[in-house]
């Protein structure tokens, strides 16, 4: 890990427990995480391994049971709404289901205008706002003229997810948390979405946390990979080390379950 890079987000001993007594479920169990500037990390795990809970805790959407989150060296403080909003200027997310990510009463203009306002552009003349929105839309290959006066549900899933990336382009957060951004999209649009995210990383130097169950995707995009099982990180390291030379049996099993094209896919071990 390069030392000179700034430590953006770190978590130590992060734990989330749902329920109590007999119904107690430990969703995330003492997780340590370090995220440096400009890095792309992925958290890979099966459904129910606690990936999304971890993401929600990092975003500050749910409280933590135990453990601390540090943002840019200082302990994260989101005790008031104002502080939370300040925090969300730095960390933003793309969620799995684009259909439920938007407020259905807001038009697409409003969605994008909100982002400009959040970046302090409330006093901009309208022409400048339109210019910014057009730029963001063209970045994700959408035409702003076609989107005005439309509602998000009039778009297809892939278009909605691209609009989400346009939002991120306008907000320019330091950290992007992408929670399975391509799982509801078919394989062909997936490449487009990934390309856009990578371009975004290049242009505004964003740090990305990728949460996915697709180990191939994690290998393609990330510098380092964390494998999660039952709320714990079982294996972590650089992408090449984890994916090509896995040590833990769980990682080996995950890799074995994915269909391959260059190697024989072993169906006997299920």
């Amino acid at each position, binding site marked *: 890990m390069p030392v000179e890079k700034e430590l953006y987000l770190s978590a130590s001993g992060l734990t989330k427990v749902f329920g109590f007594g007999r119904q107690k479920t430990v969703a995330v169990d003492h997780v340590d995480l370090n995220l440096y500037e400009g890095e792309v990390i992925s958290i890979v795990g*099966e*459904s129910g391994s606690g990936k999304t809970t971890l993401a929600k805790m990092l975003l500050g959407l749910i409280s933590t049971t135990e453990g601390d989150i540090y943002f840019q060296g200082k302990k994260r403080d989101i005790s008031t709404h104002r502080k939370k909003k300040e925090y969300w200027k730095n960390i933003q997310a793309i969620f799995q289901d684009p259909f439920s990510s938007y407020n259905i009463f807001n038009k697409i203009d409003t969605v994008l205008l909100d982002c400009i306002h959040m970046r302090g552009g409330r006093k901009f003349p309208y022409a400048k706002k339109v210019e910014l929105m057009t730029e963001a839309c063209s970045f994700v*290959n959408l035409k702003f003229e076609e989107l005005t006066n439309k509602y998000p549900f009039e778009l*297809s899933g*892939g278009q909605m997810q691209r609009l989400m990336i346009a939002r991120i382009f306008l907000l320019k957060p330091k950290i992007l948390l992408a929670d399975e951004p391509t799982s509801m999209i*078919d*394989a*062909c*649009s*997936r*490449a*487009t979405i*990934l*390309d856009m995210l990578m371009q975004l990383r290049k242009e505004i130097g964003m740090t990305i946390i990728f949460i996915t*169950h*697709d*180990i*191939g*995707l*994690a*290998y*393609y995009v990330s510098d380092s990979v964390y494998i999660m099982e039952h709320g714990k990180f079982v294996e972590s390291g650089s*992408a*090449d080390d984890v*994916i*090509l030379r896995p040590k833990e049996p769980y990682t080996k*099993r*995950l*890799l074995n*379950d*994915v*269909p*391959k*094209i*260059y*190697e024989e*896919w072993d*169906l006997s071990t*299920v």
Partner: protein
Amino acid sequence: MSNTMLEVRELTTKYITRFREDVYAVDHVSLKVEEGKTLGIAGESGCGKSTLALSLMGYYFPPLHYTSGEIIIDGHNITGMDPDVVRKMILGAEIAYIPQAAMNALNPTQKIIHFIEDVIQEHDLYVTKKDIYERARILFETLGLPAEVLQKYPVELSGGMKQRTVIAVSVLLLPKVLIADEPSSALDVTSQKMVIKMLRQLMETGLISSMIFITHELPLLYNVTDDIMVMYAGQIVEKGTAQETVFDPLHPYSKGLMGSIIVPEKGLRDVKLAAIPGVPPNLKNPPAGCRFAPRCKYVREECTLHSIPMHEAAGRRAYRCIIPEKELREIYAKEAYRNAR
């Protein structure tokens, strides 16, 4: 000598929208599935894969309408048959269909065995419940599913188990052809593998003679199927064996599709994923000439003039593009060279 289990000649079906517009979602599709073979159909969402699957069964309900073409299952022509007869005699018995969210087909208030009784008694009224149970138990044990599942309610089963149960039920009447429409897309990788293993088992034990497998996940398709057809905007744009189509695609669209494969294997990080720009055309008024022309990198003037027929290529392959095979290969070779640097 292998028999042809399912043959489709120039099948065209359309949707009639509520504004009386015709949408030709399956446009002159011909295919042939031989005994013991698995045919894969690949394509983007919205290209007509699922409509093709529905059309193949010969059972049409609005807004889907039959226009022209022939469907021949094991020597019997089923085109033009009465929908009720098709439902009673063909569906389930000759051709079975697993829809995308098959597990939602289970009734939450019924035990699995009641669901099975319904299925069998719809086709044969005079079977006793004891016989049905015995038949289901033997089938479930052959496929490696525990027989206790039969006495359970759907809520007691996991997603993967539900999916496998529905697949098992769909082959109860020993159909000749099984159409699996994205049978594993809602499942996680481990359950997906179990489903795929079960489908392979069905073929090996001879419970079904042939299978049509529809998915947009190419690595999966490559591992399951013998032949692959690539579909675009309601038309077949390429057909060939799985090996040829995945590693040596001819049509520019298939080339783009194969370029978007993500597998956790060595060499993935060195290549740039090929993304096809643009969106599939609206089938209400598809572009004239080649339907892929607006998104194609190698588009020429002649492309948009008239519709393109399928061209034969080496082996038993065919593709729908005006550029000759040799020239296409040269273009791809040049591009690979450029990308490598």
